[in-house]
C-alpha cells in the first residue's frame, strides 16, 4: 500500500518535470523568454512548489538558472524531445488508426506521453510508416531526438493567388482549433487565397471555398507549393447516381491512415472503373462494383473518393 502511494507520488513528480521541460522547450523553440514565474504560472503550480521543482531540475542537470531566467540544458532538451515525440506519435496514432476525433486527441496524448518506453514508441512509429508530422502538422522528433523545422507563414500573411500548402494547424487554443477542424480545413491541403481583408480570409482548394475569421486563419500555417494543374473541382463518389459509372481519380487528403489503406487495397485507385449498384433500404451504405467485386461503402467514406464521370473525362481530352 505504502509502495503504491509512493509510486503514485513519483509518477506525479515525473509528470511535472516532463511538463516543465516540454514548456521550456516550447519557449526555446518559439524564441520567447522563460522566467521562473512565467513557467510556474503556465504549469499551474504554487511558487513554493515551483521553487522545489527548479531545485530538482537543476540538481538533475536538466535546466540552468541564471537570475530568474530558466535555460534548458542539452540533457533536458533531449528528455523534452522524447516526451514530445511520444505525444505527437500518440496523436498521429489516435487520429489515423484509432479514428478518435481530431479535437479530442491532444488531451488523450497528454495523458499517454508520460507513460512510454523507447521500444514501444519505435514500434508505434514504424507501424505508422515513420510519419514526419503529427495530425496538426507539427514535426515528430526522431528516435535520436532530431526535430526538423519548417518555416511556415500564417494564412493571414499569405499573398493572394500564390499557391500554398497547409503544413500546420495550431492546436491551442482548443476553441480556435475546433473551428479550423469544423471548417473542413486539413493538413497537406493545397490552396489559393482569394480574398484577404481584416474581416475575413477567403481561400479555395478548387474543390470548395472556405471563409475564415482572421483570428482563426492566423492559426493555419502555409508554405509555398507548385501551382495546381486542375482547376475544375472533381465530383465525389457520393454524387454518382445508382446505375451510373465513373472513373476513380483518387482519394482526397483528409482520408488518412487505416481507412485510406483499406480503400486502396480494395482497388479504389486512380483509373479504376466504379459503378454504383444499389443502396441499402435504410439509405446508407451504397454497394459499388469496382474491379469485379461488390463493395459496400458508407457515404462518409464515399465522399472522400474523387471521381470523374464520362462527361468531364471527355472535357479533359479536348
Amino acid at each position, binding site marked *: 500500500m505504502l509502495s503504491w502511494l509512493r509510486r503514485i507520488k513519483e509518477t506525479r513528480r515525473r509528470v511535472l518535470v516532463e511538463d516543465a521541460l516540454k514548456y521550456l522547450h516550447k519557449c526555446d523553440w518559439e524564441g520567447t523568454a522563460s522566467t521562473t514565474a512565467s513557467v510556474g504560472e503556465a504549469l499551474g503550480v504554487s511558487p513554493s512548489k515551483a521553487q522545489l521543482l527548479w531545485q530538482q531540475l537543476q540538481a538533475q542537470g536538466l535546466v540552468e538558472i541564471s537570475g530568474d531566467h530558466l535555460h534548458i540544458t542539452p540533457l533536458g532538451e533531449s528528455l523534452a524531445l522524447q516526451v514530445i515525440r511520444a505525444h505527437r506519435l500518440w496523436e498521429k496514432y489516435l487520429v489515423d488508426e484509432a479514428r478518435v476525433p481530431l479535437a479530442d486527441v491532444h488531451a488523450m496524448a497528454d495523458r499517454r506521453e508520460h507513460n512510454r518506453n523507447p521500444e514501444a514508441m519505435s514500434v508505434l512509429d*514504424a507501424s*505508422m510508416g515513420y510519419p514526419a508530422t503529427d495530425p496538426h502538422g507539427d514535426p515528430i522528433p526522431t528516435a535520436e531526438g532530431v526535430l526538423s523545422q519548417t518555416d511556415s507563414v500564417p494564412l493571414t500573411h499569405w499573398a493572394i493567388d500564390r499557391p500554398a500548402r497547409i503544413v500546420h494547424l495550431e492546436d491551442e487554443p482548443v476553441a480556435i482549433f475546433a473551428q479550423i477542424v469544423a471548417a473542413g480545413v486539413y493538413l497537406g491541403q493545397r490552396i489559393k487565397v482569394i480574398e484577404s481583408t481584416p474581416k475575413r480570409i477567403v481561400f479555395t482548394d478548387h474543390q470548395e471555398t472556405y471563409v475564415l475569421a482572421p483570428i482563426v486563419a492566423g492559426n493555419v500555417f502555409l508554405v509555398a507549393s507548385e501551382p495546381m494543374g486542375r482547376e475544375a473541382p472533381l465530383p465525389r463518389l457520393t454524387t454518382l447516381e445508382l446505375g451510373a459509372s465513373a472513373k476513380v481519380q483518387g482519394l482526397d487528403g483528409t482520408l488518412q491512415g*487505416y481507412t485510406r489503406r483499406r480503400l*486502396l487495397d480494395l482497388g479504389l485507385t486512380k483509373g479504376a472503373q466504379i459503378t454504383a449498384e444499389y443502396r441499402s433500404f435504410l439509405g446508407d451504405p451504397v454497394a459499388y462494383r*469496382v474491379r469485379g467485386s461488390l463493395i459496400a461503402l458508407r457515404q462518409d467514406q464515399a465522399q472522400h473518393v474523387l471521381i470523374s464521370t464520362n462527361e468531364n473525362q471527355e472535357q479533359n481530352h479536348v
Partner: protein
Amino acid sequence: MSECGSCSACPSSSQLDRMGLDVGKYDYVVALAGNPNTGKSSVFNALTGLRQHTGNWPGKTVTRAQGGYKFNGHRYKLVDLPGTYSLLSAAQDEEIARNFILFGRPDCTVVVTDATCLERNLNLALQVLEISSRVVVCVNLMDEAKRKGIQIDARALGRDLGVPIVLTSARTGDGLDALLVAIEQVVTGKVELHPHRVLRDGPFQRAVAELVPMVEEVAPGLPNARWVAMRLLDGDHRVRQALLSGELTEIASAQKVYEEKIPMTIAQGGRE
C-alpha cells in the same frame, strides 16, 4: 450434385492421401494465401480431408489452420493463411499472412484467386510474387465463372505471371489433381519460374533501385531484395527487425541451400 466428401469425386484418389490434422512429419510446407471468400478454405478442406467451416462471408478464417496430405510419396504440410486483400497494411491478419510467406519459408505458396473477380485478386497475387517466386496461382470458383459467362485463359495468365496457373472448382473437386501436380513441380524445382514484378518509373521506384544493392550486400542471394527495399521505404517494423537480427540473411542462405540441393531434399524425405 457431386460433393467432395465422396471419394469418387476425389482427384487422383490413387495418389492423394489426406492426412487431416496428422502432420507430424512432412517433406514440404505449402502456404495457402488468397483474398477473403475465394474458396481458399474449400481448397484446404479438399486437400487435407478436414472440414474447416467455410461460410460465405468475408473474413471467416481468422487464424492459421494447418493440415496435411500425401501425394506421390511426399508428405505436405498445408497452412491456410487468413484471407487478406493485401499484404501492405499492418492489420493483424495481413501481418500473419505476410510473416508466414516471408519468414515461415514455405516451399510453395498457393494464391487462391476468384475467377469471377480476377483483377482484384491479382492485386494480392502480384504482391505475393514480389515476396516469393515459388508460387502457384490457383484460379478457383471456375464453376461460378462459367455460370456468369466468364472464361479464363490460363496460358495467357501463366505467361504474364510467370508461375504455374491451375483452374479449379474446389467445391466439386475439379482441377485439384492439376493443383497437386503444380505444387509438386514447384517444390521439387521441376518448373522454371519467372515471377512477374511490378515496375514503374517514378521517385519511389528510383529509391527502391537505390536500396536494392544495399539489401543484396546485407543478405546476398535474397530472392526478394526489391520487396525488402520497398518495405523499408514504407516503414515496415517487422522487416527492419528481421534485417537487424540477421533473420533475412538466414533466409537468404537457406534459399541458396535450397537451390543447390533440390534433388537432395527429394531423396531425403522427412525433415522434421
